[in-house]
């Protein structure tokens, strides 16, 4: 297969190389299969139109062997079981839990992750356990990371991803009947090239809430795939970003309603300054038969300079008739009238702008505690 030198070298290495011996129970064949059959995403494919995936391959080649050992940092309350992939218990949990929710064919980067994996953990919220104390994920030791989350029936789990570096990170979660999974995600400004995948499957009556704030990176791509596989499941995604310099952020979110009575909300607020580039693809898919679905997406974007760019593609794909579905997208700049109003009250231009921008981002995350948690506090 043709491709850039980085791509070709990477493909060859992935197909030839054995794994490091880390977590030998992991079945890596499907990943190798996908790389062999489908290959790596090519430049100019629709999904990668706005992110130069070659530059990420370069990062993989640079970081793929290993990085300096760091202390694995997962802090968890006693009721929640956290096990490193290296332990035999992880194999047990993975085997006992639901099947993988990752569609490797559409997520080849996750296949790269699996073949180069050095850091992984299973997080299990046992049936009926309602934990209020969060699990915190800090820096993990390895450029390729996989956190497997099982929220069992009626359990509730809060997970906080602290800002930390990686080349590729997978958060894979299943939420069983009536389970709750609350996911906070903070992405700090970074000079690295980072991609991640969040893949979540919700059973009947389960609930997932993701709040994500992102500063830019040299290259940052977040793929988020949520499937409402049981009736009456709910998913809420809020995202806020503020980009400067040459920051690049590409968020690709898809929410798929497979069963009736589902509810989903997506709210995004983003600011791009200097020559930053922000991308949001937000997709709502409603399968045949998923009636009484209520799904909505709102994205608002501010451009703060002549060189900044924003690309938005909110999509609806609907195969059921009895649904309520809508999306809205805006791109513009700060409201002159609001600026003028504040200045007429004696607030300086810079301060006024800062207040308005911060307020704009906070529209995404309404509750103050949450805003504080993801770094949007007033």
């Amino acid at each position, binding site marked *: 297969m043709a491709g850039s030198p980085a791509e070709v070298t990477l493909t060859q290495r992935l197909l030839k190389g054995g794994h490091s011996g880390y977590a030998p129970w992991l079945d890596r064949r499907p990943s190798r299969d996908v790389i062999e059959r489908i290959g790596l995403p090519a430049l100019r494919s*629709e999904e990668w139109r706005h992110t130069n995936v070659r530059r990420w391959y370069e990062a993989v080649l640079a970081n793929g062997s290993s990085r300096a050992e760091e202390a694995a940092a997962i802090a968890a309350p006693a009721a929640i079981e956290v096990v490193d992939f290296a332990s035999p218990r992880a194999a047990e949990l993975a085997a006992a839990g639901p099947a993988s929710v990752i569609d490797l064919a559409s997520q080849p980067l996750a296949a790269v992750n699996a073949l180069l994996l050095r850091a992984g953990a299973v997080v299990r919220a046992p049936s009926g356990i309602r934990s209020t104390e969060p699990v915190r994920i800090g820096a993990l030791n390895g450029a390729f990371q996989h956190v497997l989350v099982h929220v069992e029936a009626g359990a509730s789990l809060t997970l906080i991803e602290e800002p930390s570096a990686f080349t590729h990170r997978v958060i894979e979660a299943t939420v069983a009947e009536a389970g709750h999974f609350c996911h906070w995600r903070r992405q700090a400004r970074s000079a690295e090239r980072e991609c991640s995948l969040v893949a979540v499957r919700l059973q009947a009556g389960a609930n997932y809430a993701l709040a994500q704030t992102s500063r830019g990176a040299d290259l940052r791509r977040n793929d988020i795939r949520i499937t409402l596989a049981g009736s009456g499941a709910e998913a809420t995604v809020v995202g806020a970003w503020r980009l400067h310099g040459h920051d690049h952020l590409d968020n690709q979110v898809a929410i798929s309603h497979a069963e009736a009575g589902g509810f989903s909300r997506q709210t995004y607020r983003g600011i791009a300054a200097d020559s930053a580039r922000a991308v949001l693809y937000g997709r709502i898919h409603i399968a*045949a*038969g998923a*009636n009484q679905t209520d799904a909505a997406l709102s994205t608002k*974007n*501010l*451009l*703060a*300079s*002549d060189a*900044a*760019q*924003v*690309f*938005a*593609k*909110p*999509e*609806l*794909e*609907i*195969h*059921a*008739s*009895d*649904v*309520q*579905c*809508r*999306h*809205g*997208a*805006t*791109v*513009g*700049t700060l409201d002159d009238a609001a600026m003028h109003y504040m200045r007429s009250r004696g607030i300086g231009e810079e301060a006024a702008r800062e207040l308005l921008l911060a307020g704009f981002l906070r529209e995404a995350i309404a509750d103050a505690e949450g805003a504080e948690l993801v770094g949007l506090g007033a």
Partner: protein
Amino acid sequence: MAESAEINALVEREYAAGFVTDIAAETLPPGLDEGVVRAISAKKGEPEWMTEWRLDAYRRWRKMRPPRWAHVRFPDIDYQAISYYSAPTGDKPKSLDEVDPELLRTYEKLGIPLHERAKLAGVEGADESAPVAVDAVFDSVSIATTFKEELRDAGVVFCSIAEAIREHPELVRRYLGSVVPKPDNFYAALNSAVFSDGSFVYIPKHTRCPMELSTYFRINAANTGQFERTLIIADAGSYVSYLEGCTAPMRDDNQLHAAVVELVALEDAQIKYSTVQNWYPGDEQGRGGIYNFVTKRGACLGARSKISWTQVETGSAITWKYPSVVLRGDESVGEFHSVALTRNRQQADTGTKMIHIGRGTKSTIVSKGISAGRSQNSYRGLVRMNHGAAGARNHTQCDSLLIGDHCGAHTFPYIESKLPSATIEHEATTSKVSDEQLFLCQQRGIDAEKAVAMIVNGFCKDVFRTLPMEFAVEAAQLLEVSLEGAVG
């Protein structure tokens, strides 16, 4: 609920324009090579530069692949199995009296007036309506253009493109391919190589075209592609309203229609382009029907120029169509108003592109998609604010209405901005004809079929409002007919 079942039973009705005209025709054998391109050019009596232009397009087309990104499914087309030229035999008639009566009857049956006293049929109060000049294109040739005298007096040129190549080569050479370049896409390249006929319009400076201009396209011959080419040039300060209609017989094979339409609006000029597209959509099982793969684009070249597209799409097995506007002139305006109704197994992937280049440019998009039966209906649109489009604005409203549980309604908007002073607003909603709406109408004594038609009409109102009166009535009727039998 009971009524949902009734609505589901919706939508089957004979296609009224599905008859075949039995007329002697000269048809090129199927297949495409340089010889065929030269033969078409020769039949049209074209000058050398035109032949070369076509050959260049053909050579580019051979290196291209059909687009695959649209939300439509169909087997690969064998481009060597299509005939690229079919024309009724005999010389082109000098006047209406010389037109084959069989052809005149065809247009009469379709309600298209080729007599200069007549008006578009199916119009309430037709006696009071303004005259409409018609160019009638039958398979590969224009058979008649009406009101030529009156238009000539106003300085307006309205003729077939073949005639324009002979009579107005300077305008054709300057503008043909200037808005849709030959290699723009696979189908546009194919059209550039083999286009047979179509309409040409030139409105001189500061002239308001004295009547609506209209082209009526009819595919009759079997196994033949139709590749018309339309070019409309509105010179500075002029205005024209142009209408386009189309039908085809019912046949079990799919037929290809790959048209290219180019609009050019100079300073302060306005072009209003309205389409009522009713190509044969295929039967209930999805057999037959037209593949409507069309490239339509307008260029607002001059400052304060304006181009409006209005389309009512009810026909075709597959529609692939994105009437677009390139807003180059400062403060120029682009509009796209669309109603797309799909039923049975029709597939439509349609929308628009608004490319903002000039300062203070404005665009408005209103799209209403109605899906019924087992059809798939997608809106696909691009709004791009380029560097330099300071103060530009776009507003997009995209609504889908679903009738029944086996159809799909999809929305794929691409929003791209590269400057802070531009504003883009996009909104999309999805709804269905609700049991409550239907019951309210019924409770007031309106039967279910009429109620569905009224509700769908209400849903489309924002678009119908932008059509010329004659077409608005026709469009509403067409919609009603398409929905007839909707409620069992």
